[in-house]
């Protein structure tokens, strides 16, 4: 029996999700159509609605439904500090840690030289404009400690330092409460290399 075109189309569309191959896409499609039609309708609606209403905040580049998001407008935040993260999930982690009172810029990616993702692809010009508004004094780089995250941090510091902005990088090391016995060698090696004085 030949699969109907609309079903084929649905399966094919589901494959745009990360980590979803033909088998999983087929399973998802059958589930939505056979077991959860109401859920499928909600999903379809939520997707359309999100696509229609969401955009990037003018200031932090994260998702918002308005021009400038609530966090960027909050008078409680220190607007001389700008923290650069790769993804919105990283921003949420920073907020959960209650350690930072400044503003954010979300790159929505990172430089990935070997995949052809360069400074143009992640719109670093927008970050430069944001960071040089005359109010930001310090940019805190909180990109990942992967080789790509490090390359991104370096590139941004090369962009902003000549423009008179103080650029800092969050520190790496052992996890708080972590035991040497359970830490991976790479982390431990770098922590030893970046050891500091105990006063």
């Amino acid at each position: 029996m030949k699969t109907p075109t609309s079903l084929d189309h649905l399966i094919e569309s589901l494959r745009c999700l990360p980590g979803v191959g033909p088998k999983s896409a087929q399973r998802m499609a059958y589930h939505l159509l056979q077991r959860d039609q109401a859920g499928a309708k909600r999903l379809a609606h939520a997707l359309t609605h999100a696509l229609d209403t969401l955009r990037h905040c003018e200031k932090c580049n994260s998702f918002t439904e308005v021009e400038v998001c609530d966090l960027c407008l909050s008078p409680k935040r220190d607007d001389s500090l700008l923290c650069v993260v790769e993804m919105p999930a990283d921003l949420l982690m920073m907020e959960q840690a209650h350690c930072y009172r400044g503003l954010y810029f979300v790159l929505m990616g990172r430089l990935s030289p070997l995949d052809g993702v360069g400074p143009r692809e992640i719109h670093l010009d927008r970050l430069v404009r944001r960071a040089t508004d005359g109010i930001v004094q310090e940019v805190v780089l909180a990109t990942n400690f992967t080789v790509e995250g490090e390359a991104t941090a370096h590139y941004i510091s090369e962009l902003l330092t000549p423009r008179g902005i103080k650029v800092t990088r969050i520190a790496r090391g052992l996890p708080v409460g972590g035991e040497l016995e359970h830490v991976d060698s790479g982390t431990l090696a770098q922590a030893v290399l970046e050891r500091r004085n105990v006063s």
Partner: protein
Amino acid sequence: MVNANKTRLEDQPAYVLHTYPYRETSLIVEVFSQEHGRLPLVARGARRPKSAVRGLLLSFQPLALSWFGKNELRTLHSAEWQGGQPLLQGKALICGFYLNELLLKLLHRDDPHEQLFLYYQQTLQELARRTDHAAILRRFEKRLLQELGYALMLDREAGTGQQVVAEEGYRYVIEHGPVRQSAGQNGVELRGKTLLDLAVDDYTDPVTLQQGKALMRTLINHYLGDQPLHTRQLLKDLQQL
């Protein structure tokens, strides 16, 4: 039937060149190993937050890898941190990406290049400790071409075999070698001195560095065919900031 043990390799010195997400929680790791050259490995579950190898599969770090399987795509069994190589930072890190892109695009899979592996290792050490990055890259490019079987003729004229003269002008013709400047219009123009400097890896003369860069660029483009080098653009962007 083939014994599974026969297709298992233990503690192979290797570097990660690049990783790609694979399925929901895995990675494909392109590695450059000392004895087996470049090959892809599947690191199962490596993208899970608690994965034991997640923090180890870092580029530019010497690792000892064990893998099994005999198909195109083999499975990573374990990775051991070898240490001794400081993490590359700043410009050195971007240069490291450049080396990896060259290896990914110019080495054939499963082609052993033991000398090149040792030279790559040495080059990473140099990048971490020194600042004359351009000279380090030129030397690596030269060794890479040599290892691939495209060794450069530098101190003798192509055809005639005459000794190159420092004061003369030459053209370097691809897959041929240096000819006198007057001998035609093709090829990269350079001084005799540049050729002789390149032959002995002396990059102290800024003109040698500049002409050497143009020469290597032309040669590498030739061997890459139509493939663009993304990291070269990034290095250029960085230079222009």
